[in-house]
């Protein structure tokens, strides 16, 4: 490419304010476009600005706050800014992982929306050279009685399974809860974890003037145009007319793309690689050029297309799935092409790296766009949006003596609630055993996948409690991180790093921005205190429909390492006659609890405080017990509190338990309070003394809860509840709900 001169005339004249607004650009932003170009953009160029400056791609409202998060640790190889985060897991291996939202598409077309969410996050991970080893997710649906909920649950779960099952990556864990704030805007967050050789990580920074720019994967069609813009605006009544902006997934092609990319990555052909996700060819080409400080010239006539007559605008903005853009070493084209030929995928050299600093696009032999890369990327708008501190939560209503249901009734009722009940109906639709390394299956605290060919394991979890974040964003942010850290710890893992997926309403509302600012602050505090850096993430704003804002959900995906999967523990009680020990302090905190919402009917109160020093101390203590082989089962306490936690342990291991009554607290506070930094462990009588001694030495509060054994759960001297009755309550709700066609 030769020296650059602007040659695009303003042939289309000035755009009307409506056209500019329909591209999601404000008047001020359009003014900045004119300043950068020194002329009027053409429609293709306007479309490119539109997606590059969308909230989804530019993080313009969140950047200021995301910068405050801790992103470094000695084991972090690559933090935020690349396709996914990379950490060192020893043995010459790296773990690459990220979580991302696909909320709006999943509401409009649940099967394809969720499926392509999985496909997109898988590509983010294998783009960097990793073989994906696990998928996780976090799903937030509307109230069960809402007319759309059943249809959305059915489609989303089938879509997640449809994609993951076909590509052959096990779906190992996740969350699935229900609340009316998600009636018009569900959340579908997907996370992928992969493993790569630590010295073979692939990045997206383009380099080498003259090197070929190569397009591989599926052909480009007209699907998904302006998906990123859709994700950057709130929903309205006619959002379902946007169904054509939802992409259609093809997991079979993605499987071929995965194998072909990994095969090519074993050679030295690739200089840089980037998947075409949101904003497709536009985003991938601009990001690669911008990171490398180079220009790119593309001939759009060479892009493999699915149909004739596609315009430059459509080709650049399509979000067709299962595509990658690569910069190859000059001369490596033929060897690379033969790999993609073997896998029957399109392979096309569509351009070259240039020294112009411009993105120059030609179509039908004429110039279709000519945009300076650095100004477009670096001058992306950044906002310091006004925010207001969250209001104080409503006070917890007094529960009159004698009005509270019996402990047993409350337990059985809670176990059968949509949020606390068993989610077998969901995870049995996910292949969670393919790859034959699943050593802890769904349903426990963390999922654990063995690192192939070793005895080491990766523990993984996704966590957030939206009702806590709604009541107090900062505490809720801290709690989401702490719970992820506890879940990994409870399996015996050393927590290493997190990815976040921050789901909020419109940042243009001060109260939503206040939630965001508070939650990010809380996440930062917890991640610093727990040495648990944020290595990748995603922000999803505008989760609201017709003014109804979702409960904020800063979802945390955590990854930890287990040195010997033979020492891992699960929540399952397996042996009669063991001692159950509670680790951590119980104060009976009922604010924002599941008990309060489901049994009392009040969404009120502040969430339980999160004492990060106590989290650290108690968690490190538990990990020591597990590593020392002193406990046979472990479970962290979260939603529903102590008794729900023990009931889950009983159900998981089909072994009963008998628990002593509390001494100095109302029964419902003791059994169902959601105090943080707590775990329940089971240990043989012979380990008891050693555990108590260690606890005393470490200043860790320990309480002997009772013993294991029998075929019932007996709490505080009440009538025993048979495991059969517990199981019936726990397993009843979801299949019953889904089978009821309404």
């Amino acid at each position, binding site marked *: 490419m030769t020296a650059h001169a602007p040659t695009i005339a303003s042939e289309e004249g000035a755009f009307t304010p409506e056209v500019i607004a329909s591209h999601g650009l404000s008047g001020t932003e359009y003014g900045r476009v004119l300043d950068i170009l020194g002329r009027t953009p053409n429609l293709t160029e306007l479309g490119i600005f539109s997606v590059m400056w969308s909230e989804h791609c530019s993080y313009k409202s969140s950047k200021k706050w995301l910068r405050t998060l801790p992103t470094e640790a000695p084991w972090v190889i690559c933090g935020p800014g690349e396709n996914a985060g990379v950490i060192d897991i020893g043995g010459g291996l790296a773990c690459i992982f990220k979580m991302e939202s696909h909320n709006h598409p999943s509401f409009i077309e649940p099967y394809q929306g969720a499926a392509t969410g999985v496909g997109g996050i898988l590509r983010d991970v294998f783009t960097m050279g990793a073989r994906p080893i696990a998928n996780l997710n976090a799903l937030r649906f509307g109230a069960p009685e809402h007319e759309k909920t059943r249809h959305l649950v059915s489609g989303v779960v089938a879509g997640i399974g449809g994609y993951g099952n076909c590509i*052959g990556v096990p779906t190992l864990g996740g969350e699935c809860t229900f609340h009316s704030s998600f009636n018009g805007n569900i959340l579908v967050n997907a996370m992928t974890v992969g493993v790569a050789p630590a010295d073979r990580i692939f990045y997206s920074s383009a380099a080498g003037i003259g090197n070929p720019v190569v397009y591989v994967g599926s052909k480009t069609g007209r699907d998904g145009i302006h998906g990123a813009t859709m994700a950057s605006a709130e929903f309205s009544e006619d959002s379902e007319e946007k169904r054509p902006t939802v992409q259609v997934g093809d997991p079979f092609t993605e*499987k071929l793309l995965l194998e072909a990319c990994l095969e090519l990555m074993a050679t030295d052909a690739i200089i840089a690689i980037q998947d075409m996700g949101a904003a497709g060819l536009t985003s991938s080409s601009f990001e690669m050029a911008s990171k490398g400080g180079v220009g790119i010239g593309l001939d759009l006539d060479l892009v493999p297309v699915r149909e004739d007559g596609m315009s430059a605008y459509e080709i650049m903005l399509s979000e067709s799935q299962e595509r990658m853009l690569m910069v190859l070493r000059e001369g490596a084209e033929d060897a690379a092409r033969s790999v993609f030929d073997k896998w029957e995928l399109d392979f096309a050299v569509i351009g070259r790296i240039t020294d112009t600093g411009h993105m120059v696009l030609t179509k039908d032999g004429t110039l279709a766009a000519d945009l300076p890369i650095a100004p477009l990327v670096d001058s992306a708008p950044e906002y310091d949006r006004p925010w207001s501190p969250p209001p104080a939560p409503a006070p917890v209503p007094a529960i009159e003596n004698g009005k509270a249901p019996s402990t047993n009734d409350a337990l059985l009722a809670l176990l059968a609630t949509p949020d606390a009940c068993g989610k077998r109906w969901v995870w049995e639709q996910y292949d969670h*055993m393919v790859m*034959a390394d699943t050593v802890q299956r769904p349903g426990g605290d963390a999922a654990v996948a063995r690192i192939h060919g070793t005895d080491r394991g990766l523990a993984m979890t996704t966590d957030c409690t939206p009702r806590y974040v709604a009541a107090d964003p900062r505490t809720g942010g801290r709690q989401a991180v702490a719970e992820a850290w506890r879940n990994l710890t409870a399996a015996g893992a050393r927590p290493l790093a997190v990815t976040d997926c921050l789901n909020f309403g419109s940042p243009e509302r001060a109260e939503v921005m206040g939630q965001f600012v508070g939650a990010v602050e809380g996440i930062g505090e917890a991640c610093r205190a727990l040495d648990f850096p944020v290595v990748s993430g995603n922000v999803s704003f505008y989760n609201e429909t017709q003014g109804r804002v979702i409960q904020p959900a800063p979802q945390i995906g955590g990854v930890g390492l287990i040195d010997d999967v033979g020492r891992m523990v699960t929540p399952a009680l397996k042996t009669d006659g063991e001692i159950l020990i509670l680790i951590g302090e119980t104060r009976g905190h009922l604010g924002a609890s599941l008990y309060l919402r489901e049994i009392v009917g009040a969404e009120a109160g502040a969430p339980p405080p999160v004492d990060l020093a106590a989290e650290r101390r108690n968690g490190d203590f538990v990990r020591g017990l597990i590593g020392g082989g002193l406990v046979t089962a472990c479970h962290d306490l979260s939603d529903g509190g102590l008794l729900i936690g023990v009931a889950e342990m009983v159900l998981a291991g089909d072994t009963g338990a008998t628990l002593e009554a509390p001494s100095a607290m109302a029964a419902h506070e003791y059994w169902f309070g959601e105090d943080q930094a707590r775990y329940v462990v089971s240990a043989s009588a012979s380990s008891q003394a050693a555990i108590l001694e260690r606890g005393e030495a470490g200043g860790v509060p320990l309480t002997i809860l009772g013993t294991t054994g029998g075929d019932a759960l007996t709490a505080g001297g009440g009538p025993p509840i048979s495991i059969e009755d517990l199981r019936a309550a726990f397993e009843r709700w979801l299949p019953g709900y889904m089978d009821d066609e309404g």
Partner: protein
Amino acid sequence: MKAAVIVFPGSNCDRDIQVALAASLGHRPQMIWHGESKLPALDLIVVPGGFSYGDYLRAGAVAAKSPVMAEVAARARAGVPVLGVCNGFQILIEAGLLPGALMRNAGLRFVCREVYLRVENAGSVFTQGYNVGDVIRLPVAHLDGNYFADEGTLDALEDADRIAFRYCAANGGAHANNNPNGSARAIAGVFNEGKTVLGMMPHPERLADDRLGGNDGRALFDGLVGTLAGAQ
């Protein structure tokens, strides 16, 4: 003993069964790309699970037309043992090596869970590591595993002792709740006439290692290796 695993575009249990077989064999079986039209001398051919060709058209239908399948069929006719698991079972049916059809699960949803199986015939090269009536635990993971054949075919299969495994309760009894996909007569695996070809929906390679929660699948691979290696 020489064993090979056939790899189709979209196979995804190829590595899993390679690992499980290797544990019994002592060496890794060869992986053979579907585009090959010649096979080396082999004592065992495995058609693995997955989503060959994305299950497009019909599960197994496209893979059954792959170049390598003509050669697999020829070897099967010559008596070389062929094992098809899950999508491999679907492919063997589509290739005409086994009778019947595998339809959409009765529940219409993908199902991944452990099931109990009763061993119906322990006289084959695949099942001699078990005893007739043994109840074993293996996972299933499929959307199209609902075995169907007309009544005459089912009767003939039973008469010729060609049912390898049936879904059952933990105690070996029959109950509709234990049939994960609605298969006719709870059939989970069938043989060809010579009992040298076995197709089964459950995955023995996924529970052939105690670390994964069980090893009831291991006897299938050990039995195969014991016989085939010993026969050389």
